[in-house]
């Protein structure tokens, strides 16, 4: 029973991390039909930069901010320098992002080496919190869960209550209509890309603190994001939340009760969802 509850909590907190990474991915895809296969690289790069800033300044929070800001800037650059010049050529964009992720992975290895980095969160986030039924649970992971909920709500408010957000949503539903209304589409694209990429960098620091950062994490989180949004439905933030929950829980329960094939289960879920609903749980028919 205690193992079950702990695994449930672990699943929820892992889902929180997956949601943070995947929400940016799905946002960018929904608006721009651009599968950014360099999303995982943004995660890892944001984490490394965040680490250097946190290490230099001694403030973990500055590191988190640096992760978000640096990757938002990188996202802007990508959008302005690369993607704007190949709008509508989705496959080419995808290939370009694969190329970028290969180069970035190698350059990051050259700069930060193969060692593992771990953040030092503030003292009050470290250690365990007393909880009923499971005795104690790591404080940081609870904070991670809270952060994901807050970010999720903030994203929802942003998309549903602000002008830019509504433009983005309109763009997700009907891209042609968006340009027909005279809105500066490039601006909306740039903002979306900055937020999506920034979220990846943010998740890099936050996730790197919960676990650690090392080469290979880029591919791991790219794959996790892929599976999450395929299951949840491309372009839907709510779908990303549902997908993240399913995958996070599957992974942890797999690890607890059937570790050998734990990783394979998440992919089985994906294939099952696809067989029944090719557009994902919350996705709209293309």
């Amino acid at each position, binding site marked *: 029973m*205690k*193992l079950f509850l*702990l*695994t449930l909590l*672990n699943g929820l*907190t*892992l889902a929180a991390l997956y949601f943070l990474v995947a929400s940016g991915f799905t946002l960018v895809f929904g608006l721009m039909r651009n599968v950014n296969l360099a999303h995982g690289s943004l995660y890892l790069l944001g984490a490394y930069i965040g680490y250097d800033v946190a290490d230099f300044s001694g403030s973990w929070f500055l590191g988190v901010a640096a992760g978000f800001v640096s990757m938002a800037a990188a996202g802007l650059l990508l959008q302005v320098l690369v993607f704007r010049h190949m709008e509508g050529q989705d496959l080419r964009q995808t290939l370009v992002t694969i190329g970028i992720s290969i180069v970035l992975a190698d350059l990051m*290895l050259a700069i930060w*080496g*193969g*060692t*593992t980095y*771990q953040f*030092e969160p503030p003292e009050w986030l*470290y*250690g*365990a919190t007393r909880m009923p039924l499971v*005795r*104690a*649970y*790591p*404080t*940081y*992971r609870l904070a991670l869960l809270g952060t994901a909920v807050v970010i999720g709500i903030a994203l929802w408010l942003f998309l549903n209550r602000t002008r830019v957000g509504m433009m983005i949503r309109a763009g997700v539903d009907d891209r042609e209509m968006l340009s027909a209304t005279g809105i500066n589409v490039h601006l909306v694209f740039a903002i979306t890309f900055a937020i999506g990429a920034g979220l990846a960098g943010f998740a890099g620091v936050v996730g790197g603190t*919960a*676990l*650690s950062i*090392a*080469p*290979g*994490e880029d591919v*791991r989180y790219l794959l996790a994001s892929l599976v999450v949004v395929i299951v949840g439905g491309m372009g839907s933030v709510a779908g990303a939340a549902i997908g993240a929950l399913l995958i996070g829980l599957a*992974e*942890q329960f797999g*690890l*607890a009760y059937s*570790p*050998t094939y*734990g*990783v394979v289960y998440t992919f089985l879920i994906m294939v099952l969802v696809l067989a029944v609903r090719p557009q994902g749980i919350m996705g709209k028919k293309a």
Partner: protein
Amino acid sequence: MSIEKRTVPGVKRSLLAAAVLAVSASAGAADGVKMGALATLEGAFTVLGEDGMRGVKMALAERDNKACGQEIELITGSSDASPDSAIRAARKLVEQDKVEILIGPLSGSEGLAVKDYAKTQPQVTFLNGTSAAQDTTLRDPADNFFRWTTDGAQWQAGLGTYAYDEKGYKTVVAIAEDYSFPYTQVMGFMLEFCEKGGKVTDKFWVPIGNKDYSTIVASIPDDIDAIYVALGGADAVNFLTQYEQAGGDKPLIGGSITVDQTVMGSKGRRKSYVVGTPSAGPIADSWDDPKWQAFVTTYQETYPDGLPSPSLFAHGYYVNTLAALTALEAVDCDLSDDQAKFRAAMSSLELETPTGMVTLDANRQAVADIFLTEVAEADDGTLYNKVVKVIPQVPQTMGMDPEAFLALGPVGRDNPECK
């Protein structure tokens, strides 16, 4: 005209170029000895591979890149730690660069692959780098593959006994990554520990690449004495942090790469926690033997950009290169007759290394000293691995009768077992 036709000149051109290159490349030099070194210089293990290469270069530099007056030409090859890439790199070194002696590779499954490849190249002598899979030399060995380093099970010699007798641990659970190297380490530990009467009630095989140990931590039962952890440095850091955060308080027993500098060097909290953790391996940073100290000093002086202290990768590549050079001297660089003399010399060599004397068994596998250590706190507050005991001349069969040892069967998730 047809489209297909138009592309033909392109292919023609590149093939011609290839053919020209091929002809010119096959005309090799005659003087000196060509030595190849193969390590992982791509991918996540790059740092380790680079340290291995330092070991090769140190051994060469000690003799001015010469053996019996002949220049040694070193050609490096790189893999990405996958067996396929190791084979391709080895093939290039052997078949294209025509090396006569090959040092490498770095990791266990690469070692198995290179051993298989060695059988097809009887004219070349292969010496291990640091790969530590048991079966590279134990089962179906290659006549021309020599391993002057010990395997993953040997590395754990003495640990099981120490944990049972001195530490008083009777029941433990094992946590390790789910592949062959950790299987071998767990076996090395369990052989002695189970023999003594200890119980390993559960083994948690963590899928490779898993970083989230929270659920593993939650699964650890309360009624055990200690946790045997055979995780690599980075994963060890992850596990320890998460275990401590979850309020865990069981003592640890470490595999050969569990409580290394990565763990002890990392800042802050988990420090005090690992003090007293025993482990065992082929080297011990803080061993006060003068030969070892001299080795460390040379390393630090030669490679100011290197690691703080030579890793077991630098050590392993160094020892194997050293063996090759010593044997070359012994036969005055006579590599004729498919290197028969050279190999005979190597087989009977008693090699003095910074970590003691090393000899080879019938399968060309090293018999060497193993270091039993325990994490201790120095006066200045830093942590180091204090040498508790040197287990002398550990054979691959761990002191068992070879027949009985082989009868244990290949290591695996469920072999051995003592619940």
